[in-house]
């Protein structure tokens, strides 16, 4: 405990921690946001065209077996980004999260009952408006559940980026290890978990705000 107090007592350390935390948030949440958008688009495509579904299922099965560490390094080699660019981590995590989200979204869209769709059409909704105001909102609970899993796993995966020098809280683990210094490691673990918890809380609040009807149904 004394060690941690001493470690956190230094103003320079605290500001470095803040930078790492912000990097971590950026590296884990940007992929989440991009993935949500991609998953909705791809989920819609899956729902409309059968073959997209087949392709996506096989691609995502393979993708999920590639270790994150390898993906972080292979991406710059394949698409020619700079080796240290944070964008490598962002792309890798976007790939993981998108594959995690697509299938549930496609299924949720497919699960919208035909009579709901028919009712919306009967009310004069054009297809795109029906999608945005009826079908998509009905898929929100499923989407939110997937996003929550994705956010937790992204937040914990970003740490691995420390092994290739991309920043984030993972640096505390490698630094602490080399110095045999537990304080930074403990601080890193705690910050990562608190971050995951806070983001999860925000996502739940967001989901509840976006799906007021579930509350009405419950009470």
């Amino acid at each position, binding site marked *: 405990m004394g060690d941690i107090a001493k470690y956190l007592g230094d103003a320079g350390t605290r500001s470095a921690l803040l930078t790492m935390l912000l990097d971590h948030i950026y590296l884990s949440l940007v992929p989440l946001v991009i993935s949500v958008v991609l998953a909705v688009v791809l989920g819609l495509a899956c729902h409309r065209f059968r073959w997209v579904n087949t392709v996506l299922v096989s691609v995502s099965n393979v993708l999920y*077996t590639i270790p994150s560490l390898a993906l972080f390094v*292979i991406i710059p080699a394949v698409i020619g980004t700079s080796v240290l660019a944070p964008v490598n981590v962002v792309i890798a995590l976007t790939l993981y999260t998108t594959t995690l989200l697509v299938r549930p979204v496609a299924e949720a869209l497919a699960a919208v009952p035909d009579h709901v769709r028919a009712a919306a059409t009967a009310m004069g909704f054009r297809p795109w408006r029906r999608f945005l105001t009826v079908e998509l909102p009905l898929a929100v609970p499923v989407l939110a559940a997937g996003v929550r899993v994705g956010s*937790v796993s992204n937040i914990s995966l970003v740490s691995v980026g420390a092994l290739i020098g991309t920043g984030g809280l993972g640096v505390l683990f490698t630094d602490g290890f080399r110095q045999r210094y537990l304080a930074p490691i403990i601080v890193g673990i705690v910050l990562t978990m608190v971050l*995951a918890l806070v983001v999860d809380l925000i996502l739940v609040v967001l989901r509840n705000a976006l799906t007021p009807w579930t509350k009405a149904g419950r009470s």
Partner: protein
Amino acid sequence: MIFADAIAWLLDPVNWSGAKSIPVRVGVHLLYCLGAVLGASLIAVPLGLYIGHTGRGGVLLVGSSNALRALPTLGLVTFLYLVMNGVQTVSVLIALVVLAVPPILAGTYAGIQDVDRGVVDAARGMGMTGSQRLWRVELPNALPLLVGGLRNATLQVVATASVAAYVGIETLGRPLLDGLRVLDYAQVVGGAVLIALLAVGLDLLLALAGKLVIPRGLRLAAETRRRVKPVEEAEVVDVV
């Protein structure tokens, strides 16, 4: 280009003999993964059965085990290594077990929870005792989701065991880290391919084992459920 180099690395006879050969690393990797999944199952399956059966403390327990998912494995490995004064094997195993517990626990718990209440009540009506209901009715019905949880856990553990190389263990993470140090992409991609193959292989094996142990009548239901797996698991988490 890189992939051609990687294949060349994979086929290079130099990499197939000695203490750092591909077979040795595959073996070590496999041992750690099996140990971790087995260890996690010993903890998570009985726990999941108990809370699923009694319905006691389920939400809290599964919720807190899901908080474990946020625990960064690299952090845990480095922490345990230092605390245990350089005992590599145990520190890596514990970290991997911690990684594997949440999916297995969630799978088991959700499996038991999902059993049609009517079925359980019918069993009770037939005069089955609590443990008879658990072993003869609830467990077989929970198997599809339980096996799903095991498969998820295995995938994660196989991919993450690479981190063990950071504390000096000859897993398949070794070529990743070594290749990284000298930017030898052939090694990195070669190692990644091996890990992916191992993951796919184990997943197929578990799927097959699942087919053998899951009663035929349940298989159809299992297939549909597994597809929406991540979501179902997540829904159990809802404690915050």
